């Protein structure tokens, strides 16, 4: 395997470059996936049938907590990648762990929020609006859940194997994924919650 030392570790082999480009293209597909969900949401959001409307069930407090947690986690994983580029393995692992904890906190609030909705009679079967609301939030939440496991595996690998071209590559790609989830959340926050509460 040829290693090019003039590039950052995560780009240093041919396969690493392929992985990163491939993942960017995958993110393109993910954008289409969420775009379709958003389009469906905008089509159905005022088709509430006998169920509640967005304004009736949305609450700002848990949503703000979720937003702060996820946005902060996007910042900390950025610091983690910065530490990785400086070769500081310990700092990197710490920032990754903080990121994952923040993600876990986000998920906790989201589960709580889901329970509240169902408790208030806005279940997934209630109306077209609640179906697409919970599906869109749920798809994002499922991505975060998957990310928590994935991130954990990467932390374990970096601890065991150190910063190699492979682990650096995986960490970098994971950071792309995590930032992407944050971008999706910004859209959810603006166009589902804020627009729904107005």
């Amino acid at each position, binding site marked *: 395997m040829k290693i090019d030392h003039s590039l950052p570790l995560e780009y240093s082999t041919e396969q690493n470059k392929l992985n990163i480009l491939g993942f960017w293209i995958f993110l393109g597909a993910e954008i289409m996936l969420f775009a379709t969900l958003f389009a469906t949401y905008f089509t159905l959001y005022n088709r509430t049938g006998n169920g509640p409307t967005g304004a009736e069930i949305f609450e700002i407090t848990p949503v703000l907590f979720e937003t702060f947690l996820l946005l902060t986690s996007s910042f900390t994983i950025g610091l983690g990648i910065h530490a990785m580029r400086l070769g500081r393995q310990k700092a990197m692992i710490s920032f990754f762990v903080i990121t994952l904890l923040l993600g876990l906190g986000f998920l906790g609030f989201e589960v709580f929020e889901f329970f509240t909705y169902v408790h208030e009679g806005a279940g*997934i079967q209630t109306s077209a609006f609640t179906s697409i609301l919970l599906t869109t939030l749920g798809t994002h939440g499922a991505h975060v859940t998957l990310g928590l496991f994935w991130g954990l595996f990467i932390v374990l690998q970096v601890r065991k194997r150190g910063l190699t071209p492979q682990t650096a590559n995986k960490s970098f790609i994971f950071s792309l994924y995590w930032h992407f989830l944050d971008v999706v959340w910004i859209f959810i926050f603006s166009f589902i919650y804020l627009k729904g509460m107005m």
Partner: protein
Amino acid sequence: MEFFERFAVPHPSIAIYASMVAIGLTMVAIVAGLTYFKKWGYLWREWLTTVDHKRIGIMYLISALIMLFRGGVDAIMMRAQLSAPENTLLDAQHYNEIFTTHGVVMIIFMAMPFIFAMMNIVIPLQIGARDVAFPRLNALSFWLFFMGAMLFNISFVVGGSPDAGWTSYFPLAGNELSTSVGTNYYMIAIQISGIGSLMTGINMITTILKMRAPGMTLMKMPMFTWSSFIANVIIVFAFPVLTIALALGTMDRLFGTQFFTIDNGGMDMLWANLFWVWGHPEVYILILPAFGIYSEVISTFSRKNLYGYKSMVASMVIISLMSFLVWAHHFFTMGQGALTNSIFSITTMAIAVPTGVKIFNWLLTMYKGKIEITTPMLYSLLFIPLFTLGGVTGVMLAMSAADYQYHNTMFLVAHFHNVIIPGVVFAMLAGLTYYWPKMFGFMLNERIGKWTAWLLSIGFLLAFMPMYITGLDGQARRMYTYSESTGFGPLNMVSFVGAIIMAIGFVLIVYNVYYSVRYASRDISADPWDARTLEWATHNPVPEYNFAVLPEVKSSEALWDAKKKGHVLFKGEYEEIHMPNNSGAPFIMSIIFFVLGFSLIFSLWIPAIISIIGVFAFMTHRSFEQDHGHHISVKEIEETETKMRGAK
């Protein structure tokens, strides 16, 4: 007993019981054969675990041919039922199931794997690479497609086939009107194979962007690679829409959500929109690689470089963008208003322009060329007039006001078969014949090949031209019978005769393979067609590592210029080659997906949860796995190369 009742077929007939016996016997025969000839190890080592793009391509090809016959049997049954007025060969339910599975099988499980077969076999060779960017992912893509296809195909013996049309419109496809598990099969089997297609898209784009031989700039790529590149870009942007549409449809059917229902705010037309936002680009996913094959074949057998290379690329880019802007023309009559219909009418007619540019480019490529009519060239020559006919009727359908007359009639059925058969099927058969020596090291028989091409064309004309007429006279599609007073009888009989001639043509393909395996000469050169691009610069059949030394490219027709202008393609010494290891994980993981799909279809939650855990276990294992591949030593390369040259 109640537990087992749901696995029973809701509308059993003798044909279905006979199929069950046939499937059972075939499986026993395969297992017995593999055991008797002690081929289990060979099958596992060389095929089930392979990550070699050429072998994956061959497996795609075999699956596509099998599915061609599966879908073809459906077609023959439909034509037989309609060959006479008030025929009782099939009942309405059986007919509904057959036209549904015919459409799904032909598009998703025949045409798609056929183009993936061509892409897998050709692209890495054409760009001078040793494999695709992610070989293991490529294997997973194939096995997911394969398991999706198998899952779909067991539907007619376990639980019942889908019967809501290949478009599966809601509310017809909803729980109230489609009570059997058939539509669950539709939603989940297509989902599984669709994930595979999406991953192939990502894989091929990365391969084409990053792994081209030195010197091959984007505008020096061979046309098939260009067309596949654009088709894969469309895949990456269109398939997620299908993923979501199918997921929402599945949730409506399994979890009682309200996306496409009638009450509680659901919107059935949303399904039609989402389906066709994927469905129309899908048409271009199929036709663009087909255009690529025609470009290669026409240029090779006219002994001229492709006319208008840049305009070919530009027109494909324009087609790919516009393919996302025409979807509403599939339901002009569903009441979205005059303005919307007008816009989609105009975009639809406009998309004919770049397609027309391509037709003229092919004609001008042939102009003053030294045309040699081989089988692939014969398909291409038949393609141009037949496809143009389909294109013209397409423009007729594009006029939204007139569409009120054509909508849902046999005219439409004639139109889309008129573009798909000469467009995609002929291209794939041309590609099959053209690349056969590359895959297997011998050529298919030309005489039988030309007979096939003519039979398919004549059969095609007889089968589908009458439908234009009956369609304009008002024969509706998807109706299982008609009365004698309509006068549709004789023309439908002509269609049936045409279908039989086509069937003979397809059987001849199999005979051709058999005949050529037995009698064709193995003593062919690496370049039997006197071709122009890099895939013909290596041996036949291709060694595992494709190229002993990676080629250096100076033009879009690297091999031709090497032959005529004396460009040197291969410079330098042999070096150790790094290759990926085989892996059983994609195959086993796809089997788990099969179990997962089956459990979801029948709402068996415990096996479903266990198989989801299984899928994640495999992903976890993959995350921790350290697989650095293996190296082929210089000595081994020298031995292989000497042997390959000696065989010439």
